[in-house]
């Protein structure tokens, strides 16, 4: 593997890749003043539409616009067809794994994954044992983070099968782009993303208990202070369902109800966007005011479906990630279509000793966290950071994994215009989070969220840490 990141838009000779030729020609044909205005115009549209995310601990009211880069990322049809098959294969396997772990545990009995790695995970939930969702669907919504390495291939960087967020930006980004570059988007035949809310509602409705004809679905949010609150508003609006908080809900006689102006109303399916730990104070954290007491018992009685199910985090545990190729082979007898990044489990003494010697050459990740929290990138870390990481690893080796540093691909991105410098297109690192829905059949959103690290050289794309996003265009042909 060469260590130079590949450029998504231009080949090594600096020529536009064939699928990007029209976009490049369009941008080159745009006069520099109009080009420079694009980010500001986009920013205003986001502000008027109220598309914001909340930042914890931010003094300025905490509401920010997720930075948006108007240069679209193009995925040709052939590439996407293959990715789509790989994503479906992967999410099916993750779902089968969750079902297995909280049921038969065949994968442990057959010695594919060590028992203590699962039972010892912070993401394992005893409360999930024996809950059987309809059609065995535990993972209704998955967001799979992909990166394109320097060999040009997409790799899975991590899985998100708890409460993945970001899909609302995909839909809003497209609305913005349709206004900024209508000629281009029409001319290129870009696959639509607007069906996602309908697909999500269909997938959720398919989970409803058998006896229910037209199920009442509600979205459970932690409330306006949550970082993804805008998305909760957006999705409930698009699906035409109630957006509820824990205090709107009550469990009576093993049934779930919401409190309305005209009395209690039954809820059949709950799309929850709060973590397991806060979901039900009877079973999880007793101090949680966000959830609803008794919900787990209602699930167990089969009177409500909750998506994603309890304990699905066991499948996106970063140590379990190392076993995902084995998982796919075990459940389906297939080879994984999308490779993962080579992963070292620091719980193994030999491995740990070898890695600790060269810690500055690896990326270290806590097994139970998400959103980029707690990640140490060896080559960019200070000696002090490395020393702290070393200490933490030695204290609790099972809580960490190490991976080689992947050179994320770069994509031309507009820089400069927001801080007064001259506008220019410069390469910035990107990743891709496609969204997969599992109902009676899988449904995959065309493309997904392209996140871009706006700071030069940075590979951290998370919105909470200086990342932005781009619209992702999957071409029809």
């Amino acid at each position, binding site marked *: 593997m060469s260590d130079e990141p590949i450029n998504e838009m231009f080949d090594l000779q600096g020529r536009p890749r064939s699928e990007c030729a029209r976009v490049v020609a369009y941008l080159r044909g745009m006069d520099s003043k109009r080009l420079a205005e694009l980010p500001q115009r986009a920013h205003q549209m986001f*502000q*008027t*539409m*109220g598309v914001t995310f909340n930042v914890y601990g931010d003094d300025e009211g905490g509401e920010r616009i997720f930075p948006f880069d108007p240069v679209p990322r193009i995925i040709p049809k052939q590439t996407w067809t293959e990715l789509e098959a790989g994503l479906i294969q992967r999410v099916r396997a993750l779902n089968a794994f969750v079902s297995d772990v909280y049921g038969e545990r065949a994968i442990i009995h057959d010695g594919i994954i060590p028992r203590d790695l699962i039972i010892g995970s912070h993401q394992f939930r005893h409360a999930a044992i024996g809950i059987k969702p309809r059609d065995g669907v535990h993972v209704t919504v998955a967001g799979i983070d992909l990166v394109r390495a320097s060999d040009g291939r997409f790799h899975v960087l991590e899985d998100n099968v708890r409460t993945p967020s970001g899909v609302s930006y995909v839909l809003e980004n497209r609305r913005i782009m349709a206004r900024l570059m209508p000629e281009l988007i029409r001319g290129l035949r870009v696959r639509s993303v607007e069906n996602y809310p309908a697909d999500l509602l269909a997938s959720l409705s398919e989970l409803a208990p058998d006896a229910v004809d037209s199920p009442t679905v509600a979205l459970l949010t932690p*409330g*306006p202070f949550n970082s993804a*609150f805008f998305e909760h*508003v*957006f999705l*409930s*609006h698009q699906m035409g369902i*109630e*957006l*509820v*908080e824990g*205090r*709107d809900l009550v469990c009576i006689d093993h049934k779930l109800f*919401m*409190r*309305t*102006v*005209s*009395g209690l109303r039954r809820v059949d399916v709950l799309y929850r966007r709060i973590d397991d730990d806060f979901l039900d104070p009877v079973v999880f954290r007793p101090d949680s005011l966000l959830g609803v007491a008794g919900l787990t018992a209602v699930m167990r009685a089969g009177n409500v479906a909750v998506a994603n199910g309890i304990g699905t985090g066991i499948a996106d545990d970063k140590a379990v990630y190392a076993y995902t190729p084995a998982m796919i082979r075990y459940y389906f007898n297939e080879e994984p279509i999308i490779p993962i990044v080579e992963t070292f489990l620091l719980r193994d003494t030999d491995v740990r000793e070898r890695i600790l010697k060269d810690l500055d050459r690896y990326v270290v990740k806590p097994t139970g966290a998400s959103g980029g929290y707690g990640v140490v990138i060896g080559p960019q870390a200070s000696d002090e950071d490395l020393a702290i990481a070393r200490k933490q690893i030695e204290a609790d080796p099972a809580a960490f994994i190490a991976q080689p540093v992947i050179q994320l691909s770069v994509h031309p991105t507009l820089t400069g215009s927001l801080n007064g410098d001259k506008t220019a297109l410069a390469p910035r690192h990107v990743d891709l989070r496609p969204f997969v829905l599992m109902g009676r059949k899988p449904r995959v959103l065309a493309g997904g969220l392209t996140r871009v690290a706006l700071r030069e050289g940075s590979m951290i794309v998370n919105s909470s840490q200086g990342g932005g996003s781009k619209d992702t265009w999957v071409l029809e042909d």
Partner: protein
Amino acid sequence: MLRRVAASLFWAARYLERAQWNARLVDVNYSLLLEVPPRDADPWEPLVRITGQYDSFAERHSRADEGAVIDFFTFDRENPSSIRNCVEALRNNLSPLRHLISSELWMAVNGLYFDAQEWSPGILATQGVFAFFATLKDRFYTILGIITNTLPRDSAYDLIDIGTLLERADNVSRMLDVKYHFLLPRLEDIGGPADLRQWGAVLKSASALEAFRKTHGNAITVAGTVDYLVFEPTFPRSIRFSIERLAAALERTTMAGADQSSSLTFSKELLERLRSTSANQVIADGLHEFLLDAQSRYARLADLIFREFMSLD
């Protein structure tokens, strides 16, 4: 509809009405003082009294002069009822309900919110007091127009109506009470041009002056003004009109729910009182007492509505 959502709609409507009302009060008083030379040392003071927050104002200002009062009504972040704070509260109540209202409504409210964040008292100097408040009033009318034209007449609309009308009845009674107190002692002025102007301004504060003239002609009297603002059944900002519509909205909301509604019963009693008395009667019995009593009844009604439709206990 969720009870929590009902509360947000109710409060959003109250803040919108309050912001709009405050903008009109300032605007009318400003014009009045240009037309009629003030008789009092602090002709802006009654406005602060109307808000019921005179003490909090006096703690921070030595005099109720024009600059201080306009600032208090418009930009002051310490005053929970300043227009800026009302707009912010309106927006924050609607923000989680974007899925229930029209995108036109959300964008109009959100746009106003972002502008209000940028306001500083200097804007009055650059734009002019007239122009600033004229634009502002237009934006409130735009929002009200969007509400009327884009929202279905369902329970959400009824709750917005209930909040608006309760706030409106309360505001009218507060304004009348204070104005009556400040204007009445000047017996020598009764029927004179200054008096006409003053009571004309009271009507104008409720956008009622032109409508009043259509039925009452040019004879603006205390009794006529009270009659119009409290008892007129056809004028949309009169107390009677507001309570009548509020009772109707409550009736629709209740029909979808409980059989016995204490808030509906109470609002019908309020309406009956308004129907069975007159301006001359309440002035003879003491207007101040009448209005004070009315205000405490509106507070009681708000409490009943909260318990019945919004409380999560």
